[in-house]
């Protein structure tokens, strides 16, 4: 009898331990964005399934994936990456295919394949948000009110340092739009040598005034410190600094560049099953809407749109702060992932050479 009790207790303890050992490691971009995911996805996921979620950060989670998969030493289960990176990694066979069948339908029964925005479901990736690269400024430090993307490049009317992401992507597009190219013609122009030359020529005009940033958390900091008066930034980070932390930061929506962030699973992920479970859970209608109450990124499901309400402070209406709000889309560019999959290496090479000149 006594022995049986001991055995039972051990077995129970063992089961408890096994349940606790279940975990999934999610890599994201850190800062306010990672926090929004922890609040909207990770915590409810753990509460519902008991699976522990480890949150890790990187400047760009796409970069560690290749190294990990090729070395056969994968520690990430789910990564949050940009569109062109998702396609590229998938093409190279570094990602697990994701079966769209695991994704739950919308509350009204619309299947996931129709509920997600066009392009949001890929062979190896499921989009969670629509984000955008915007120009933001510190209203206390800038004289006047910048209103267009051209103002970003106008250092005579708006003197002061500019912050830009140290990467060809988005920078070249903005340079062309700043030079007066309409959003619809930007990629056609960038495909030609003259277009690329024109973009670099535009960047040349402000080269001496640029402070380069790499991590998404930097631009709000640079703006708040007064280190720059205007900077390109991820719109959600600016929103959080402005509304969440009461910094005098404003967004210029003219010339914004929209992009998806997508969840992917690297080949050989240690907790494959939990990873898929996590993705299915996090990208359902309610979770995507919840995430939008922590940061101003648009949900990738159409059915989530109506559920987006107030910011977590309980009083700010989120809708007008979304990059997808009609008013903000007047002169917006949708990132052309195919262009960047192709030209990333080439243009970054030239970009690096230009930087070093």
């Amino acid at each position, binding site marked *: 009898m006594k022995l049986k009790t001991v055995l039972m207790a051990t077995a129970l303890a063992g089961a408890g331990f096994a349940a606790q050992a279940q975990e999934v490691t999610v890599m994201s971009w850190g800062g306010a964005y990672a926090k929004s995911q922890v609040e909207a996805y990770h915590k409810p996921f753990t509460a519902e399934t008991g699976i522990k979620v480890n949150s890790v950060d990187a400047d760009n989670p796409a970069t560690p994936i290749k190294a990990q998969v090729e070395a056969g030493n994968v520690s990430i289960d789910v990564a949050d990456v940009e569109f062109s990176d998702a396609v590229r990694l998938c093409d190279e066979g570094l990602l697990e295919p994701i079966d769209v069948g695991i994704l739950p339908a919308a509350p009204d029964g619309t299947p996931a394949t129709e509920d997600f925005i066009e392009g949001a479901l890929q062979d190896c990736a499921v989009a969670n948000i629509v984000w955008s690269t915007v120009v933001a400024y510190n209203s206390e430090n800038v004289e006047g009110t910048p209103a267009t993307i051209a103002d970003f490049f106008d250092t005579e009317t708006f003197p002061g340092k500019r912050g830009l992401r140290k990467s060809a992507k988005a920078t070249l597009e903005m340079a062309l739009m700043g030079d007066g190219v309409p959003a619809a013609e930007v990629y056609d122009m960038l495909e030609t040598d003259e277009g690329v030359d024109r973009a670099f020529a535009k960047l040349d005009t402000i080269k001496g005034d640029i402070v380069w940033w790499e991590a998404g958390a930097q631009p709000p900091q640079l703006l708040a*410190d007064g280190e720059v008066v205007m900077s390109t930034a991820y719109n959600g980070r600016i929103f959080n600094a402005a509304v969440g932390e009461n910094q005098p930061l404003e967004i210029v929506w003219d010339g914004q560049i929209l992009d998806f962030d997508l969840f992917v699973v690297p080949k050989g992920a240690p907790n494959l099953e939990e990873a898929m479970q996590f993705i299915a859970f996090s990208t359902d209608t309610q979770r995507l809407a919840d995430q939008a109450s922590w940061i101003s990124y648009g949900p990738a499901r159409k059915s989530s749109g109506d559920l987006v309400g107030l910011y977590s402070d309980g009083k700010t209406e989120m809708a007008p702060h979304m990059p997808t709000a009609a008013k903000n889309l007047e002169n917006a560019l949708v990132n052309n992932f195919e262009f960047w999959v192709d030209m*990333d290496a080439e243009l970054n090479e030239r970009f690096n050479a230009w930087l*070093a000149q």
Partner: protein
Amino acid sequence: MTDATANGKPQMLTTADGKPLKEALKRAQARARRKAFLLVLPLLAFILITFVTPIAQMLHQSVYNEGFVMHEDIGTRTRTPIMTNIKAWFDGNSAGTEPDEAAFAALHQDFLLLRELRAPGQVGTRVNYERGGSRSMFTKAARSAERMEPPYREAFLDVDEEWTDPELWRVMRDASSAYTFNFYLAALDRTKNVDGEIVSVDQNRQIYIKLFTRTLFLSVLITFLTFLLAYPIAHLLATLPLRYSNLLMIFVLLPFWTSLLVRTTSWMVLLQSQGVVNDALVGMGILGDENRLQMMYNQIGTVVAMTHILLPFMVLPLYSVMRPINPSYVRAARSLGATSWTAFRRIYFPQTVPGIGAGALLVFILAVGYYITPALVGGADGQLISNLIAFHMQNSLNWSLAAALAALLLAGILILYWLYDRLIGIDNLKLG
């Protein structure tokens, strides 16, 4: 004994048990050597695994890229040769041959296999390293490969009209052999033209030679600055009574023990345009608010932060050499009529040369490979070659080019080391 000498043969010395002494001695020494070898074996294995093997792998990677010729399934690790038909065509036709229908038919066969293996991206990436914009041509062609019908030349041109571009075929021919020196060419701002001749890349793409030169120049400058700063400090430390010098030594060691990132970020706080130094200068009225000095996110930031971070590597070897220098030599020189400058120049300084050599070599080699500090404070023009190596490791994922750049850096350092050995002599090095 006398008999033996008389015979003209020296008598063999033996041990007590009759064995020849020489052999016994040899055996005993061999045993000792084996023991000694066993003792260093762990270290040897450690160095082989963590140092020699990775460097060998890196050198191999810089001349070997099998992206175009071999597919390895990540799950099962099975390796399948790919692009074999087009390789056969390349072998049968000399460089510069116009691709004919046979070539495109071979290409079509290869694409069917690529499609099956899900490998067109891998092949496209390899070609993309040398010819931008090629990736999507491969993924698109693979997607329509199953529907293609002869004539294949037209079928490929339907997918993308650049399929007859001679540059593309030159790159494919080069990539079809896994061993290539093209990554070294790229690392030296060179490329091959359509005829296979080596030419410089466009002016607006030249970057690596410039960065190698800049890295070398900044490293020499930083080494010199650390020497200027460290020499008086080390001298002070060496000549003060022990209880004061120990206290001062802590000031040298404390930053040495502090995290590199913390020290780098502190410099950012100090030097940025809204930082402590600028605020102080503006506050004292030395600078106008508009004319704040730009000391961060450029070469000045890199030089200042790196000089500070590498300073202990110069102070410590200098100190260890200066400490045991007998002060009576300088005193003797002075008493014989030397001026203080002559005494320093001819008596004291020569005795510290081994320390200078050690410190300079340490600082220089560390500076040449420095990565995180320039990445944080260097902005655009304070970047070093290691930042580009990291870029190709992490962002562009062109590991072969990264390896070629690293190999060139390694070769450069080995040459400098050899020069140092010839000019100053490595035996003169004193690390402590």
